[in-house]
């Protein structure tokens, strides 16, 4: 699964202004509405419901909020660099500054899991994170995120 198939070019937020987890999720839902046409309130509720099961902050400053929306017909990703790291109740208690939102249609099953695994593998790559933290140009970020797999990670 390639990131380029999930992430539309306008799905990159180069510097998100938020002071809390909730506010960050709202901002992401707002952008997601612009891309998917699903009302931002609905998206926000799904994300919040998922966070209630356990934080999607996976440590090292990274969060991958996700959820399933019956209204969608394909997987959508949105990436955001947070300007000032925010508290996200992460596993390692460290604040978060890189967020990848993933929305899946109902019944995406295995594709949903594969996409989540792909995104998490991408963001666990420390050199990738260092590059993402190092630029606030949306085009550069998009290019980094959608680089073909082989060029930065042999696995």
């Amino acid at each position, binding site marked *: 699964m390639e990131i380029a198939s999930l992430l539309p070019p306008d799905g990159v937020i180069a510097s998100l202004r938020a002071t809390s987890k909730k506010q960050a999720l709202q901002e992401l839902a707002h952008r997601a509405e612009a891309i998917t046409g699903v009302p931002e309130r609905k998206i926000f509720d799904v994300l919040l419901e*998922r966070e209630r*099961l*356990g*934080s*999607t902050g*996976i*440590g*090292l*400053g990274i969060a*991958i909020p996700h*959820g*399933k929306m019956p209204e969608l017909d394909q997987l959508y990703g949105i990436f955001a660099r947070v300007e000032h*790291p925010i508290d996200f109740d992460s*596993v*390692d*208690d*460290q*604040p978060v500054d890189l967020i990848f939102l993933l929305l899946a249609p109902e*019944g995406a*099953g*295995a594709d*949903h*899991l*594969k996409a*989540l*695994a792909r995104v*998490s*593998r991408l963001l*666990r790559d*420390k050199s990738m994170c*260092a590059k993402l*933290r190092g630029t606030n140009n949306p085009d550069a970020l998009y290019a980094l995120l959608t680089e073909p797999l082989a060029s930065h*990670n*042999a*696995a």
Partner: protein
Amino acid sequence: MLAGEDGPGGLDFDNFQIAYTLGAIALAVVLFDGGLRTHRSTLALASWPALLLATVGVVLTAALTGAMAALLFSLSWLEGMLVGSIVASTDAAAVFFLLGAGGTNLVKRVRATLETESGVNDPMAVFLTVTCVALIEAGPPNFSTNALPGLVGAFLMQIAGGAVFGVVGGLALVRLINALNLATGLYPILALSGALVVFGVAQSVGASGFLAVYLAGVVLGNRRHRATLVIDRFQDGLAWLSQIGMFLMLGLLVTPTNLIPTVLPSLALAAFLILVARPVAVLLCTAPFGFNWREKTFLGWVGLRGAVPIFLGTVPVLAGLPNADAYFEIAFVVVLTSLVVQGWTVNLAARQLNLALPPAPRPAQRFDVDLPAEAERDLSAFVVQETSAAVGWLPGDMRLEDDVEIVAVIRDGVMRLPSDAPRLAAGDYVVVVAPAERMGALDRLFGSAPRKDPSGRDEAVFGEFTFGGETLTGDLARMYDLPIPPPEQALTLSDFLRRHLRGRIDAGDRLKLGDVELIVRALDGETILQVGIELEPRRFPLLQADVARIWAHHWWRVLRNRLWRRRE
């Protein structure tokens, strides 16, 4: 070995007496170091299974191997037992090394059991060997039930005496170190000589000096004392030196040309020990403790032999028994086989059995200032490593424990207070004041990122996402389309996993559900507090059956309920 009488070195070293004495001292140093590293929590976790393995397990292994040896080498039963006893104990140093520096981070309980077992079972093997030698020397006519009370008494003296000397000696050593005001460099030497005194005194009164010196190490390692770091580092280096010295010397003792006639039966004996005797002993000894089958398999496989059996092989030579050289040579071949076969496969086995935990980050370079023990704080400077998790953070943004204080950041020779320090970069010095027990966590924070395992996974070993144990299984099933029977979906994750995981549950246990695995991350007694989900788990064919089993259990429950109702 090459340097020995048959090799190019041509050194003719066959003074078994000197070898024995030096070997004993080297072993004492290694055991003391092992003790220093054995944390109290390790003992709490594993003392009973380890104790059983170190006593009953050693006897079982010795008896089984001994019987086999008697058959293979056409020895008498007693002589067979002697061979069995010589190779019965697992090697503390080899186990500590392969599990520690070898890089694999094992599930805690398995690691603790192996470490404690290997520390405690040497005295048992020493005792069995000495007893066998004494019995053979006395000859068959004197071997009667009359000798039994004496033997039991000697055994109790070994164990109880060793324990008392170890604990008392350890406590005395702690007091001595804290009471004396010496130059820092002298503390490790004080600790070492203290340990050797404990060893010597215990040995001379017929108690087990090996047990005593191990316990003294445990006591010292778990008490607050001066110069902790210097002592640890010195001991670490010395333990290595002892190891190398011990193997070098024992290699010199072996005459390779003498090995040739016994090498095939010795290999057969090694195979029997690895494949039959050790697994059987482990299965029997761990039965009461609810290990799961993967843990038992691993414990059974990793019975590494090391220098101890070779060292014990010198005992019959010194006693002047007939065929004494043969014992020594058999032990040598068995140990070499075990080290090569098991040593090479430890890490592989741990990963294949899914017992490996996420690899720990490699520690940062750290410079310590030894404050007096009463201060209860250490002052250390960490060098931020290039791939550390701390790179790119403002010191003020990092979430640290309340008792951890960043005092200053030094970059390019300029010191800044944390409030106006720049984002951390590789090579920065971070000066921290914190209690000693926090230093490990800080090592990890400022250290390099963990190495990845061969398949490129790292922290993901514990799963991508984390859930509380009280989360409903159904919520997870809906979110990730997991194939879980509807009635089971009403259970909490904690109850669901406890129903379907066999044996006693420990952090790292996994349940396969279709394409993903659920992993126990943290527990409090019986209750599972945290569960991870791994989205791309390693394929391990034996685990594939889990979903089928869950459904089978489910239908069995339904069927049982129907039958029950009909009968009423």
